């Protein structure tokens, strides 16, 4: 590996002034309060407290991003919190309503399966060809978790930030990002680049099988996160096998491999939704670019990327791979400031901070709206048990 950590590090830009940082953070603070703090409304006291804590938490992280100029480590705190608190809130709700985490067939027939964004790519072809949704959920739920709401939010946001969804909104990726952060260094460093193709293969296979068998094939057999959300109510051997597959995939891809590689292995090597999201990186105006005049290349960016979205060849070309999640790890790792946030159509020499700000306002507003509400829900559950 041609990594040279002794490269002269360019002086980091000085932190922003406090007043300027506060001004930049103000819109996010207002947005957070609007989202989470509703005193006097018919909400429980603990929910109000949880909302207030979430608003402060999200605002403080954004403040630190603005103040330090670093993105990744502050985003990671949010993302890991989201990954941990999603199962807390979800499991509590599902057990309160249903009494078990296992979903029985009666619930599916009644269309009461909570919708998640994972099956979105699996729904497209059956819906286009037969006007049938191969998911046992309701499209017009008033709970806010209905399919129409979920698909609408996803589409609007994903058109703007592309695969940034996977770093700022996905409520699954945080668990593995947290696990990957635990060991000081990776035990396995040599990773076959061909494994990057697996998510595309899973996507292709699952889309075709969903169309052929008229079922959300991924949810039925392969979703690792069934282990921490809603497993199959196993009533026979096949159901047991399904649950064993879910647990093994979760243990391997979300716990063991991230710990050994310090990468988000489920996202990099398996997630079909992530592969689908990659396509939207072509549409999004935001991207990460490498200023080739400044780049040595030391490949620290490639090593820092949690999603294997940089290769030696892509660095030489001055760009990331299609799978880039815009988490900012590469920018923070670059000692020479060669890796930059960039708006398509502008020159690479243009100042990158405005591009970073524009992206972060969009991405963080989405993070507050989508991930923040999940964090608030999880916190409310914890407060419910603690207080």
């Amino acid at each position, binding site marked *: 590996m041609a990594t040279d950590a002794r490269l002269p590090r360019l002086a980091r830009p000085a932190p922003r002034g406090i007043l300027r940082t506060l001004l930049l953070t103000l819109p996010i603070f207002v947005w957070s309060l609007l989202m989470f703090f509703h005193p006097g409304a018919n909400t429980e006291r603990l929910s109000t407290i949880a909302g207030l804590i979430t608003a402060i938490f999200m605002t403080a992280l954004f403040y630190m991003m603005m103040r330090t100029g670093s993105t990744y480590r502050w985003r990671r705190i949010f993302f890991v919190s989201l990954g941990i608190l999603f199962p807390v809130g979800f499991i509590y709700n599902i057990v309160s309503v249903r009494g078990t985490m296992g979903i029985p067939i009666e619930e599916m027939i009644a269309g009461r399966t909570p919708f998640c964004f994972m099956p979105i790519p699996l729904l497209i072809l059956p819906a286009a060809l037969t006007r049938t949704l191969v998911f046992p959920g309701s499209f017009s739920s008033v709970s806010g978790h209905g399919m129409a709401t979920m698909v609408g939010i996803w589409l609007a946001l994903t058109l703007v930030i592309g695969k940034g969804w996977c770093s700022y909104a996905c409520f699954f990726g945080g668990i593995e990002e947290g696990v990957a952060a635990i060991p000081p260094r990776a035990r396995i460093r040599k990773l076959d680049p061909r494994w990057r193709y697996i998510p595309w293969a899973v996507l292709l296979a699952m889309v075709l099988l969903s169309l052929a068998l008229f079922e959300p094939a991924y949810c039925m057999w392969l979703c690792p996160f069934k282990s921490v959300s809603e497993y199959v109510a196993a009533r026979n*051997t096949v159901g047991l096998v399904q649950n064993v597959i879910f647990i093994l995939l979760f243990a391997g891809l979300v716990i063991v491999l991230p710990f050994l590689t310090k990468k988000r292995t489920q996202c990099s090597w398996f997630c079909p939704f992530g592969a689908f999201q990659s396509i939207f990186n072509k549409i999004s105006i935001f991207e990460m670019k490498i200023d080739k005049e400044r780049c040595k290349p030391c490949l620290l960016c490639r090593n820092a990327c949690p999603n294997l979205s940089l290769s030696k060849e892509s660095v030489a070309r001055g760009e990331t791979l299609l799978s880039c999640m815009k988490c900012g790890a590469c920018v923070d790792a670059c000692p020479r400031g060669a890796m930059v946030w960039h708006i398509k159509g502008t020159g690479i020499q243009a100042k990158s901070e405005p591009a970073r700000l524009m992206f972060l306002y969009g991405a963080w507003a989405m993070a507050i709206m989508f991930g923040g509400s999940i964090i608030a829900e999880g916190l409310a559950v914890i407060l419910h048990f603690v207080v």
Partner: protein
Amino acid sequence: MAVFASYGEALTLGLASGPACIAACGPVLVPSLLTQRAGFRPHARYLSAFLAARLLGYLLFAVVAWELGALASMLPAPRALMMGVVYCLLAGVLLWYAVSAGRNCAHACEDSKLVKIGGPKNSEIAGSASLGFLTGLNLCPPFVAAGVRAAQLSSMAAALLFFAVFFIGTSVWFIPFLSFGCIARNQAVITVARMAMVLIALYYLALGIAMLLGKKAYGY
């Protein structure tokens, strides 16, 4: 006049159920097409072999339908058994295809940037024909509906013709698959297609074994 109406019905049934047919064949056809060389001719050759073998499957089914006369009311157990066998065989052929495509790729990629896929034409045609024949035996609802009508016809020849016309109707929907020839082939496309084939094969194998063991497909 009644004869024309009958075959008109077969054609209409075929045309109407085309989307269901391409949906049923998609998991087999799409990845295997993606491992072919880019271009119209290789795809036309592959699709021709696939469809010809699928027609053979249809005609075989027509003979059985007419002979038994009551195939549509085939009991669930033997029907599940037949589907289980078909799924297991499909899984086997897909796995073989994925492995052989990799071998051909590794051999042909040595000094060419463009991947040259497909070994000897005979084995390529044998693979597509096997897949076509097995998907031709797929007991999807429109296929069973055609089986019911064929069983009611006066002679076996009429039943065969009915299924042949039904086949023509469904085959129209396969013409767009020729456009896959326009997709540029490189190592990434071939690798993704091979990996997808393996996954689909494992899925079919699981379904097939579950059906053979008489288990419900899902544990709900």
